[in-house]
């Protein structure tokens, strides 16, 4: 009960955490008038002043646009609303951000599948980027209904599920038990006693085990579609480790640790591999190799500290601990937090791609 309570009680923490760190994107909202049309033009052309004007639009309380007629107009409104929602999250106006994305979804569903898919994915990234894996999961699932074998959507949905079984330490909002049940058992409603079963560690464990195995299969499916997906390989390695399949986990993690394609994934893989080392000295070396890539990786400083302590180097251990403690003062969003935001880090790029394809709504 305490564990479940801890998860529930810590909901929305990541919203604050990410907000404090400057967020993942910027911009505004709109009204169906000339100012809106001018704004869209400037916005899609990437004009610097447009972003700050959009921010002002959000702050001044303009109502977002939920009605549209022509395709171009609808797409522009949908993209601007998404951008505006991100701005609201950064301002910690979470409910309004949620409402804005929710109000835009019906509008998007009436557009062409290609646009709708990209928008749903971007919206999922946005929610995950602020720690809401539950809403992210919902949007990815809607995207997968349009493109069932899309590797990006499969990866994103698996990351959302991952945090329902692997504790993130930040209190992100996990996928609801009802949705997890549906994925696990192919639909239907969970039994009424599910909440009681999940409140009991003895009955919860097998359920979580099933879920972990499901997530493993999903990452494997992503790799079949896209063998070069470093992130899927990293996350597969972590899930295998959680399943107790250390040998297989090590193979996957070592492959990622040696790659240079995605520095965040490489750093996290090295961090995880440090735990496999049998001696404190080897673990310290592994932690240092992770920190070489990303010195904001707080668990690596902590692990390095503990390894040094186990080796008898207390002053070194204290110095590494102080490094970790100093990270809290930088205000930067650490690699460890970004990892636990699932595919949230993909939001800025996805938004840029949506913006680039907008046509003038006249």
């Amino acid at each position, binding site marked *: 009960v*305490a*564990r479940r*309570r*801890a*998860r529930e*009680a*810590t*909901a929305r*923490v990541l919203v*604050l*955490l990410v907000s404090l760190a400057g967020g993942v994107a910027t911009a505004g909202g709109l009204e169906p008038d000339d100012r809106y049309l001018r704004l869209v033009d400037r916005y899609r052309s990437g004009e610097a002043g447009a972003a700050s004007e959009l921010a002002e639009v959000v702050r001044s309380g303009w109502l977002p646009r939920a009605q549209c007629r022509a395709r171009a107009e609808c797409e522009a409104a949908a993209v601007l609303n998404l951008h505006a929602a991100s701005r609201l999250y950064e301002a910690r106006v979470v409910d309004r951000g949620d409402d804005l994305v929710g109000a835009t979804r019906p509008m998007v569903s009436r557009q062409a599948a290609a646009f709708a898919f990209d928008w749903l994915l971007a919206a999922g990234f946005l929610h995950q980027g602020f720690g809401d894996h539950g809403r992210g999961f919902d949007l990815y699932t809607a995207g997968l209904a349009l493109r069932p074998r899309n590797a990006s959507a499969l990866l994103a949905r698996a990351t959302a599920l991952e945090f329902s079984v692997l*504790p*993130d*330490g*930040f*209190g992100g909002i996990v996928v609801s038990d009802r949705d997890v049940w549906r994925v696990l058992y192919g639909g239907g409603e969970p039994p009424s006693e599910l909440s009681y079963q999940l409140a009991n560690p003895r009955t919860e464990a097998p359920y979580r085990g099933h879920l972990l195995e499901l997530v493993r299969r999903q990452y494997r499916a992503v790799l079949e579609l896209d063998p070069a997906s470093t992130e899927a390989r990293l996350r597969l390695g972590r899930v295998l480790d959680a399943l107790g399949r250390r040998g297989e986990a090590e193979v996957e993690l070592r492959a990622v640790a040696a790659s240079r394609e995605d520095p965040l994934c490489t750093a996290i893989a090295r961090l995880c591999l440090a735990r496999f080392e049998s001696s404190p000295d080897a673990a310290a070396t592994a932690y240092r190799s992770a920190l070489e890539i990303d010195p904001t990786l*707080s*668990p690596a400083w*902590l*692990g390095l*500290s*503990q390894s040094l*302590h*186990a*080796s*008898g*180097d*207390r*002053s070194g*251990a*204290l110095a590494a*601990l102080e490094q*970790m*403690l100093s*990270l*809290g003062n930088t205000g930067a969003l650490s690699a460890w937090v970004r990892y636990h935001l699932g595919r949230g880090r993909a939001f800025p790029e996805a938004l840029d791609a949506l913006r680039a394809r907008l046509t003038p709504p006249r």
Partner: protein
Amino acid sequence: VPAIPGLVALALLAAPQSRKPPTFAVGVENVNVDVLVTRGGRTVEGLSARDFVVTDNGVLQQVEVVAQAGTAVDAVLALDMSTSVQGEKLAALRRAAHRFVDSLWPTDSVTLLEFASEVRVGARPRTALPDVHAAIERLEGGGATLLVDAAYAALLLTDPRRGRPLVVVFSDGVDHGSWLDPETVLATARAEDAVVHYVEIEGSLTFLSRLADATGGRGWSARRWEKLPEAFVEALDEFKSRYRLRYEPVGVPREGWHRIEVRLASRKGKVLARPGYLVPRGRGGP
């Protein structure tokens, strides 16, 4: 370099290393043990070294009482600031922390450690008391519970050069998301000098209970939030009433686990002390 209980850190500084001497060099390294003696639930005072019998891995040791009341304490107060600590609970926790700080003597020092989704230092030792109180007022609940990571940090932030090391951990929940493994932190505790006391609200804090056991510490169950201040002060007062015994280990190999047994020579009373200490293997001889 702080003692781990006394001997490890000093031994680590020793160079060059040699594998031959199987026992400690007398006069080089000390082991410190904080001992609580009670009878009928009350602290027994006025004991001297002759009243204690201490064995290290079964070998009788010559001890001295180096301190009891009046010796400076180096305290780390580690507070769980997870999301569940809000409103009245937060106010009660702040009151408890204020009481704890007010109960310290001028020679004592305190480190304020807060943990939720991160582990942070709110106030360092030697910080002026008004600033420590101000740091307590700035405490805000929000986040997960990196209890195990915080316990490790608290252990390392103690420094016997400042006083007898004490860690007091408050938590109202279970760990959620720590990187460090509880077993490794327990091993750290066995190699450190600090006594860990804990104060909890809603029971079954297995890790904290084991941590306290490993260091000779105890737990207080406040049951209600408004009782927190009393529990915090009791934890501090109990520690201050302990005897600090010291001995230079003889007749035992330096490395590995040292089982300590402390009992009273002739008097009646209940003795609480750490069950032993760990000197990591592979560190060479003195």
